[in-house]
């Protein structure tokens, strides 16, 4: 791997590690950036509409579509009987029919799909579909599922030490229950897919998905054809956040079914209500815990039973539960522990991946224990956390026995720097003084460290491919298996490609992600997009450069094998930029010399694996670290509160593109803030989602971002064995927002000094008012 040389003004320069705009910034701002629903479609393109179950659980007693089919403009109405292949859309558990057969398991489950020449005609046709369902008892809450032992998969357990004895011997014993709510992804672009029938029984599917390969596989299975007959392409998504990891396959497969049935292009686009009522969300969790602390705040024992609401099918729930268990420790060493996780099956939409993938729900439990212990002990919220950080051996082993390498654990450094730069001690003293004077308005300061494991915990998925093409004029097409959903992956891949090939950014065209360019890819998920694809791009480019080097040496009339610099569209003998030939000249010469100018690159993460039965192993390649300090103000009359300042110091290693990483940190934090303080999914007693549009489901708005928002990336912290010393950034910052709970508790605790605060999540104004009234009653 190359190291960075100091830059000489005017000299050729690689874009790597430098600030850059988003690769599509100008297209976004001009409205020229194209999303699936924006593509011009040929005349005759049909639009699809999902007939969804209105009942949470029941037996289908009648499903008749003939009358709907006969309506003007309706091309077809497809039910399970019309599926030529396998009626299954689940990622691996085979418990999720694309179209319901005999039974329905949640409100919003797809029963039939209509294709017609307009959305209005589809709606008319939907009314003409005769669907009768005999309702059966449904499980609509996590508590009911636990009581009825309605499980998905097997329990997952991790153990260490003697947790009962350690708890019994702990001077501070805390028992509690933590509930965290679901969260809708609310990507601004709802789900959309467009399928074109092609010759010889083949299909081109344009899909807003994080996982083109799975969409391809699912379309092929549903159609009963080989995968090579389906090409899936994704240019960009208008947001994903995990919501388009598995969920996109539904609508793509339906569009493909329609294209097969009608031989016409078929598009499905969900309006916001459909998107929110038909697709999965973040898993609500419920946990019961017992924590034992020493008098100095040291965590001695931690016992947790954690339950995830998977909804009606498995989807990714077991992996999400695993990640929740892997993050029950967050950043803290726990000598004695037992964690058991169970996934529950309910009759609600099937919950799915969402930024953090169970990590936030796991961390929320230990953070609740930390907050409660701090309040009981009268300790500082930051101090009790730092007291428990991982450290030198033997305090460097996670509950699943992976080593947290002390040399790479940057949390102490981050903590010290953040608390110093953010003036923690002085501000806390000011706030305490303010609170002592102010009867109805209180302020709080919440510190939150985060350690987050990087890698797919299903180790097989940690692989990626790239395909780079150089044309004889020196222009380049870049393909890799990752998808762009706004996170800036393509911007980073362009920087790596430009750096490795030594071309200018404008010489590279970043191609849409397509399954006919790079096969068998993993989802762009688990924050791993740039780690995995970046290595693959790097490998492809290195292959090409090795092929070009002798050609360039010939043009430059230097020894083959002489050191050459490829940079900024030029190639020159090292240290002699004045002698440069252009990259285009080298490409042309290579073509004339009959040298292949296309190469693939491949990467798999080395040395990871996990023994599920034993609850031990090394699931993660490395850990990402960060910390945040959140300041809030709380009003005792209404429960309203506002985040007034946030300071974050986050470790992204040697950032590939720092401006992009800052954007991920800020956006992740605010999304976490939404989950913890605003976003509330309310279901009717019949299992109907009541908050199914932004009218009633409130994600953070403009004014929720604090005016004073200071984000720093940790400097001088390259990560070994990751592409160009960088680190993953997509998910970890989401959990920094957990600090808002400590901040709120600090504020509310001022009404009941020395006693724990009882605050529910999401901490809406109502939840905060309840906590305030409770604190004032006790205080």
């Amino acid at each position, binding site marked *: 791997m190359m190291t960075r040389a100091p830059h000489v003004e005017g000299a050729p320069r690689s874009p790597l590690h430098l600030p850059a*705009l988003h690769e*599509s*910034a*100008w*297209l*976004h*701002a*001009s*409205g*020229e*950036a194209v999303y699936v*629903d924006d593509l*011009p479609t040929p005349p005759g393109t049909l639009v699809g509409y999902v007939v969804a179950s209105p009942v949470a659980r029941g037996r289908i007693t009648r499903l008749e579509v003939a009358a709907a089919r006969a309506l003007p403009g309706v091309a077809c109405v497809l039910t399970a009987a019309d599926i030529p292949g396998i009626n299954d859309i689940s990622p691996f558990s085979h418990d999720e029919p694309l179209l319901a057969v005999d039974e329905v398991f949640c409100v919003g489950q797809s029963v039939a799909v209509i294709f017609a020449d307009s959305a209005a005609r589809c709606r008319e046709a939907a009314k003409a579909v005769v669907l009768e369902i005999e309702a059966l008892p449904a499980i609509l809450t996590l508590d009911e599922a636990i009581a009825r032992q309605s499980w998905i998969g097997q329990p997952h357990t991790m153990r260490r030490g003697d947790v009962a004895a350690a708890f019994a011997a702990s001077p501070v014993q805390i028992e509690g229950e933590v509930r965290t709510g679901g969260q809708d992804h*609310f*990507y*601004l*672009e709802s789900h959309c897919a467009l399928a074109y029938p092609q010759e010889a029984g083949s299909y081109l599917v344009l899909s807003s998905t994080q996982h083109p390969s799975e969409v391809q596989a699912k379309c092929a299975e549903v159609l009963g054809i080989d995968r090579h007959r389906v090409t899936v392409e994704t240019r*960009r998504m*208008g*947001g*994903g956040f995990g919501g388009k990891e598995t969920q996109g396959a539904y609508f793509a497969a339906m569009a493909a079914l329609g294209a097969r049935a009608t031989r016409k292009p078929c598009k499905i686009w969900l*309006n*916001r*209500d459909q998107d929110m009522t038909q697709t999965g969300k973040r898993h609500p969790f419920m946990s019961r815990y017992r924590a034992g602390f020493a008098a100095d705040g040291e965590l001695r024992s931690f016992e947790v039973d954690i339950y995830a609401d998977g909804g009606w099918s498995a989807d990714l729930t077991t992996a999400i539960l695993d990640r929740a268990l892997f993050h029950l420790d967050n950043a803290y060493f726990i000598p004695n522990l037992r964690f058991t996780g169970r996934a529950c099956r309910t009759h609600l939409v099937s919950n799915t991946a969402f930024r953090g993938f169970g990590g936030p729900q796991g961390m929320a439990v230990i953070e609740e224990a930390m907050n409660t212990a701090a309040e009981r002990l009268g300790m500082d919220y930051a101090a009790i956390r730092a007291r428990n950080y991982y450290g030198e051996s033997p305090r460097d082993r996670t509950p699943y026995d992976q080593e947290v390498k002390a040399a790479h654990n940057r949390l102490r450094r981050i903590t010290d720097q953040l608390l110093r730069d953010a003036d923690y001690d002085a501000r806390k003293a000011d706030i305490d003084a*303010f609170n002592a004077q*102010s009867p*109805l*308005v209180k302020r709080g300061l919440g510190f939150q460290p985060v350690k987050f494991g990087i890698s797919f915990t299903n180790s097989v998925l940690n692989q990626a491919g790239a395909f780079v093409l150089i044309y004889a004029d020196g222009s380049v097409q870049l393909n890799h298996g990752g998808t762009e959903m*706004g*996170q800036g992956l393509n911007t980073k891949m362009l920087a790596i490609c430009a750096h490795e090939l030594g071309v200018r950014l404008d010489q590279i065209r970043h191609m849409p992600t397509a399954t006919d360019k790079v096969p068998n890819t993993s989802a762009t998920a688990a924050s791993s997009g740039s780690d995995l694809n970046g290595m693959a791009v790097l490998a492809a480019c290195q292959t090409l450069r090795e092929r070009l080097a002798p050609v360039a040496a010939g043009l430059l009339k230097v020894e083959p094998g002489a050191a050459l610099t490829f940079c900024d569209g030029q190639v020159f003998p090292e240290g002699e930029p004045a002698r440069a030939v252009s990259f285009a000249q080298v490409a042309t010469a290579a073509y004339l010399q009959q040298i292949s100018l296309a190469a693939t690159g491949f990467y798999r993460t080395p040395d990871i694996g996990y023994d599920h039965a034993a609850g031990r192993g090394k699931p993660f390649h490395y850990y990402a670290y960060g910390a945040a300090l959140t300041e809030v*103000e709380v*009003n*005792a*009359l*209404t429960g*309203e509160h506002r985040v007034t300042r946030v300071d974050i110091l986050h470790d992204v290693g040697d950032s590939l593109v720092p401006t992009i990483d800052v*954007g991920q940190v*800020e*956006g*992740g934090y*605010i999304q976490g803030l939404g989950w913890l303080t605003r976003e*509330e999914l*309310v279901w009717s007693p019949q299992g109907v989602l009541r908050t199914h*549009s*932004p*009218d*009633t489901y*409130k*994600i*953070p*708005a*403009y*004014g*929720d*971002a604090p005016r004073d*928002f200071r984000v720093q990336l940790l400097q001088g912290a390259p990560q070994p064995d990751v592409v160009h010393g960088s680190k993953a950034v997509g998910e970890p910052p989401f959990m920094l927002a957990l600090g808002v709970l400590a901040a709120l508790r600090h504020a509310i605790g001022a009404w009941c000094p020395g006693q724990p605060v009882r605050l529910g999540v999401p901490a*809406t*104004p*109502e939840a905060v*008012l309840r906590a305030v009234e409770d604190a004032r009653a006790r205080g």
Partner: protein
Amino acid sequence: MDELRFTLNGQPIAEAEAPPNTTLLNYLRQRRGLTGTKEGCAEGDCGACTVAVLDPDAAGGPAWRAVNSCLLLLPMLQGKQVVTVEALGSSGEPHPAQASMAKHLGSQCGYCTPGIVMSIFEACYRRDLDAPWKLDDQLCGNLCRCTGYRPIREAAEAVAGSCPVDRFQGEAAEATPVDMALAYARGGQRHMNPTTPEALWALLEAHPEARLVAGGTDLSLEITKQFKTLPLLISVEGVAGLRGVTAVEGGWRLGATTPLADIEAALGEAIPTLGRMLRFFGARQIKNRGTLGGNLCTASPIGDMPPALISLRAEAILGSRQGERRVPLEDFFVAYRKTALAPGEILSGVFVPELAGLNLRAAAYKVSKRQELDISTVSAGLAVELDDAGRVVDARLAFGGMAATPKRAASAEAALLGQPWTREAVEAAAQRLDADFAPLSDHRGSAWYRATVARNLLLGFYLETERTPRPHLPYRPTATVQIPTP
């Protein structure tokens, strides 16, 4: 019958095919291939569909106004000019609003971006952005799920109020009054834009079954969310004499079709109760289109202007061919979503008396899950008048979200009358609110929360007005009620 005539991105459009219920958003995307404008919700709550319409009659002079194209029906554009993100500039030659968003990394996935660009576009030409909250207000109608907003704020701050001298500024400067006159029927739907009261009365008489519409920010939802067909709409928007805020004997007359943004500009400072409520009302796009008349006539129990106006002793001015009659605003709301309007009658305006001379304490409150762009859980317009001895001689405590209509708290008011204006008296009166209201539980809040907040707001009102009788809001308040802090 007429054609639809408007100017789209500088091109004159004569449209004779689109049914009148067609929204501008669908027209742009489906019939014009202008897909830069996005749909994120079709209910005015995300801003992805924002476009700009030139309003020659805007308070402060002709101006481009950001509006939600998802709620705008094509006939509402009759005679007007509209621009979409595509017309501002291109990736090669961007408008300053576009360039600023790109340069500040204001976009990640880019889906919200065109709408945000259009909100910043309006901001570019605004000359009245003299307080930081106004820029927040300008942008709070645009949701972004990716960025966390900081770069968007910086992009907006960099160009807001920069008043570029360009084609758009020129078009605004040359704007002439709009003739909205239209009678348009297609596909079994009709839309009428009368422009004179006489024409309006005649239409109302001829079509008693017609629905009235003004800004459409409420009514259009029936089309975009419930997929209803509205076969006959009569718009009051273009009727002469119904728009504007005018000083009249003893107060102000607020025309029914005055957009809320204009009311905010005209009276937000002078009448803090109105300024406060409008600060929390919807978002800029909604206030640019939504009218006062629409807000009152939709008669929602969680409408925000009724409590504020009731507390100010406002009167509804009902107009018909027979002339005008006035009713106290609290009597305008007769039952759940039912007003005192008789057949053939419209709301012409609202009279708001000048109360400045009195020893008056007055403020408005709105509590919702999110401070920006949210519907009230509880709202209140509270006013008390004291005599020289500090005794309450008049109390008007109007609440929204507490009953089937916007309603005054009769027992709490009675408890205050004649009492000294003290914390004890206020706390006693607050207890009486339980006799006045039995609020419901729903997804916005529980009955407990509503009842508790209503009581607490009264106490908060007392505390807040101790120092300033008619307080304004600071920038980015933590809560709707401002309790003095050390």
